[in-house]
């Protein structure tokens, strides 16, 4: 296409200022099925929604600029780097691969993710990791209220502070926070931070490429498991 260029490095460049999103995503999907460039650069996203959604190949995608909702939604295998901010539902339901945001992320980052790694190098807003089901989420900055709401499995690591109602109605997900927690949600409690958890934090930080934070500085939170089966005595907690 006339609007695209192959950089000297072999990176396929797509300019969303002139290329419809549909064409971009179709090409990325086709590349997964039929083979194609292994590295893509998307310029001028200008807040477009569903950029690089539904990828299913070991390709690398760099997005230069801010993206709208659901960037890298349901990602499999691919590595997507956003050099800007991401709006609601970043990497929602991610299955595998890596989604990295060199900026801030809005609400529900990594929502319902079932695998892979999501890293936000800035702050993430409310409901980060909501209903997460196996994904690892690392936030270099702070997370907003109701993060890890109904989090089922996976790990959320927050290097900054967490807002109110962290881990409300949490199941088996593991939460690590270095800074202050506004408040803990229903059935979420602080748990012992043992050596194996320090190792786990160290690994997560290394995976995220964060090397200026000490793994020993975190605290661990998880489910008290008191709301797993309904008891009328707990009615006020619901």
């Amino acid at each position, binding site marked *: 296409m006339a609007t695209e260029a192959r950089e000297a490095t072999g990176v396929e460049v797509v300019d969303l200022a002139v290329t419809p999103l549909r064409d971009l995503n179709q090409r990325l999907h086709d590349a997964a099925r039929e083979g194609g460039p292994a590295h893509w650069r998307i310029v001028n996203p200008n807040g477009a929604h569903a950029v690089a959604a539904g990828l299913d190949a070991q390709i690398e995608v760099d997005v230069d600029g801010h993206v709208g909702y659901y960037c890298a939604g349901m990602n499999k295998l691919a590595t997507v780097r956003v050099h800007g901010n991401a709006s609601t539902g970043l990497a929602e339901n991610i299955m595998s691969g890596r989604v990295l945001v060199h900026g801030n992320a809005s609400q529900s980052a990594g929502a319902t993710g079932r695998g892979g790694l999501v890293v936000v190098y800035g702050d993430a807003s409310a409901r980060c990791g909501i*209903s997460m089901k196996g994904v690892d989420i690392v936030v270099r900055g702070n997370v907003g209220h109701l993060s890890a709401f109904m989090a*089922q499995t996976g790990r959320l690591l927050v290097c900054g502070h967490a807002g109110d109602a962290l881990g409300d109605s949490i199941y088996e997900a593991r939460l690590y926070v270095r800074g202050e927690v506004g408040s803990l949600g229903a059935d979420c409690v602080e748990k012992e931070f043992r050596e194996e958890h320090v190792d786990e934090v160290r690994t997560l930080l290394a995976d995220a490429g964060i090397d200026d934070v000490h793994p020993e500085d975190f605290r661990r939170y998880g489910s008290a498991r008191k709301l797993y089966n309904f008891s009328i005595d707990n009615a006020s907690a619901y």
Partner: protein
Amino acid sequence: MAGNGSWALRESYLYDRNVIAEIQRAAQEGIYDIRGFGAKRRVPHFDDLLLLGASISRYPLEGYRERCDTNVTLGTRFAKKPLELRIPITIAGMSFGALSAPAKEALGRGATEMGTSTTTGDGGMTPEEREHSKLLVYQLLPSRYGMNPDDLRKADAIEVVVGQGAKPGGGGMLLGHKISDRVAEMRNLPKGIDQRSASRHPDWTGPDDLEIKIGELREITDWEKPIFVKVGATRTYYDVQLAVKAGADVIVVDGMQGGTAATQDVFIEHVGIPTLPAVRIAADALQELDLHRQVQLIVSGGIRTGADVAKALALGADAVSIGTAALIAMGDNDPHRDEEYRAIGSAAGFYDDWQAGLDPAGISTQDDELAARFDPILGGRRIANYLRVLTLEAQTLARACGKSHVHNLEPEDLVALTVEAAAMAKVPLAGTDWIPGANGHE
């Protein structure tokens, strides 16, 4: 009193035996009643409508000689691959978890035999279900249990579930004794817990977000799949118009009689509006947008007979969905199992404890022994038979009204037996030309 015996006893209308039993149960147990099935109270329904057969001014079609087509295409608005159904009756979403794997398989088998679709539920897609369902609608629910892009692409259509008729505004519920190893694994949950699904989606809120969400689903599936939006019937006019605005191909409206596997009784009986007004409001909302028949309307909640089907279509639906009736067709509440139902504190004809997992028919259970009682091949045949009868009945009524396609039935073919039904369906009270509310308060 002498000589009259029990005839002299007068039961309170306000405090009948059922009310007394519930008050005493609540006082003893301290928790609301959770059950399956749908609303049991009487509300205006399709029974309150009658069809006007042919007369001097309109002539009928020959019952066994002239065609009356039943096919329907769903998803003609935006999807590259719309759903082509041979009959306008689909199987509603019911989860693996709520139902046993063989029951889900039977629904797929029966639907496939009759050329229609079946639907996943709040628990993801099972391989058995996909294998035995030629046309499978994959639900995207707030819980997102089992959601993954591979199944999304394997589906024939996607249904974004905003709500259901039994509990508009409520989330799913699957009690611990139905969370088997397999169910737990599919839902990424610990075994044996009481699973409470969220009532709101985790990554969108409101119609503008829904539009973006639908856009994402289309992008992930390369715009191939029809996208349905399902709502419980409440503010139906606005919900339908907002779902259309958000880009839905198909709107599914589930009236308050729609069934559930597990919800609070108070929710089932007291939230939402009946199917009868919902279908008319939804069709009117589409007509106002000049999109009736372009955005297809599926209506569910209390569809039991071909008459219900015909009347729903006459009021503007493109298709209907069945859930409770499908379970009954497969053998739920079978009188031959009365003793077994009584052994678990119920009786055939009354059994609604679908949440308990003790279903002697092996349908609403995750107990391997109970589930093994259910033969998915026989169950599939019963579903196909039942769908066949519903279709034949609807065709019979349509031909009697002179229609060569069931979609040619129209509100003018209907009258109402009660003032309430006339007002809700916006058809005249039988024997009059009065449609209450049609002209303001007249």
